[in-house]
């Protein structure tokens, strides 16, 4: 079995520049058009992705347990975590907004963790669903990752706006830093992952059958 998928640039002794998309011979080390380093596949793609992803997963714990926002109202101090803030929004009757925040700051990160871990595991072993579907999953993570930042921006706006001393003031909690780090790290992880390796391993029987027909 050849290592690279049939018909790919790599299988033809060529290398595609990840920066500018110029195809060069695989003996060329630096892209002649944009001076980027060339490699047939991103080096240590899986290792880097997994490392960043595990770090993000660890930080996801304090991001959810530590307060995102500390509100002081007439001397009473209230600590709000991500989930706490969402529940509060829901109880106050703004269900759609609560849903938006829930999707952006809970669902999206979790989905991203699951998809990226799954893709990493896939490219290490055989799996049932086709490379095409996995490619779509990867594009999904690239697309949705940034939206998790919403919660950070909400806190930033509220903190900047509400500073009425002891009457009412809002401070960012330690959770914000952890959460921002989770978002940034998962974005780097998605960047480090090389989707081309999804096509490289031997195809499954289904794929081979469909290719033959």
């Amino acid at each position, binding site marked *: 079995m050849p290592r*690279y*998928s049939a*018909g*790919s*640039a*790599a299988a*033809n002794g*060529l290398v*595609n520049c*990840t*920066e*500018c*998309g*110029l*195809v*060069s*011979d695989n*003996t060329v080390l630096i892209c*002649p*058009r*944009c*001076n980027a380093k060339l490699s047939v596949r991103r080096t240590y793609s899986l290792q880097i992705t997994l490392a960043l992803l595990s770090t993000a997963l660890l930080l996801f714990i304090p991001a959810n347990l530590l307060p995102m926002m500390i509100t002081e109202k007439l001397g009473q101090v209230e600590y709000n975590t991500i989930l706490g803030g969402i529940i509060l*929004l829901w109880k106050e009757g*703004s269900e759609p*907004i609560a849903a*938006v*925040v829930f999707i*952006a700051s809970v669902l999206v990160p979790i989905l991203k963790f699951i998809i990226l871990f799954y893709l990493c595991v896939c490219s290490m072993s055989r799996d049932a669903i086709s*490379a*095409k579907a996995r*490619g*779509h999953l*990867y*594009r999904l993570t690239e697309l949705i*990752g*940034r*939206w998790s930042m*919403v*919660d*950070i*921006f*909400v*806190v*930033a*706006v*509220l*903190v*900047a*706006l*509400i*500073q*009425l001393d002891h*009457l*009412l003031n809002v401070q*960012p909690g330690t959770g*914000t830093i952890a959460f*921002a780090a989770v978002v940034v790290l998962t974005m780097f992880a998605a960047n480090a992952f090389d989707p*081309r390796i*999804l*096509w490289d391993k031997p195809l499954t029987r289904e794929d081979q059958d469909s290719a033959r027909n």
Partner: protein
Amino acid sequence: MIENKQYVACAHCDLLLDAPVLQQDQFSACPRCGHKISRLRKSLMAQLLAFGVTALMLLVLSSCFSLMTMNIGGNISDISLWQSALNLYFDQYKVLSLIVFVLVVLIPAMVVSLILFFVLMIRINVRPKMLSNILRLIFGLLPWAMAEVFLVGVLVSLVKLVTISQIELGFSFWTYALFCICYAKVLSLLDRYQLWSWLSNGYRHA
């Protein structure tokens, strides 16, 4: 140096393909994974310039006026785009302020101005060596420009505040919203294949 201008490879699955020869408004996609490779748009350069300049002006406008004004029992406070980052800085929340400033103001502004610079240089047919670095920088910065995410963040905080205070959206909010629309248009016009081929082959009127 070996350059294979007759081939392209899909960035997502590495399938080797003939370089797309497109008619106007046609696009080419990878037959194996469906990744879009290029799209030849009508007057791409003019559109990029128009929407880029508009976006930049709107961004400058947005940083001049207030984003929203809050009134709690006579205590009025308002924030501008700058203040949302700067207030935080002076209140000792330096990391948070840096995140907001970089993702919401700095990177979107950089992306738009770099695109304008690049397109203008191609237009006047001056191609200094750093132009390829600029193009790389543009595509590298893209995922980190979070203007539209910030806009949603402002809306969510608006809803949170509506129950406890009188709140009004400022002029800057609307210009920033318009900026996001223009910015999204610029993003949808950005085409890796076309822009890089302008750099290596020069721009010809389509």
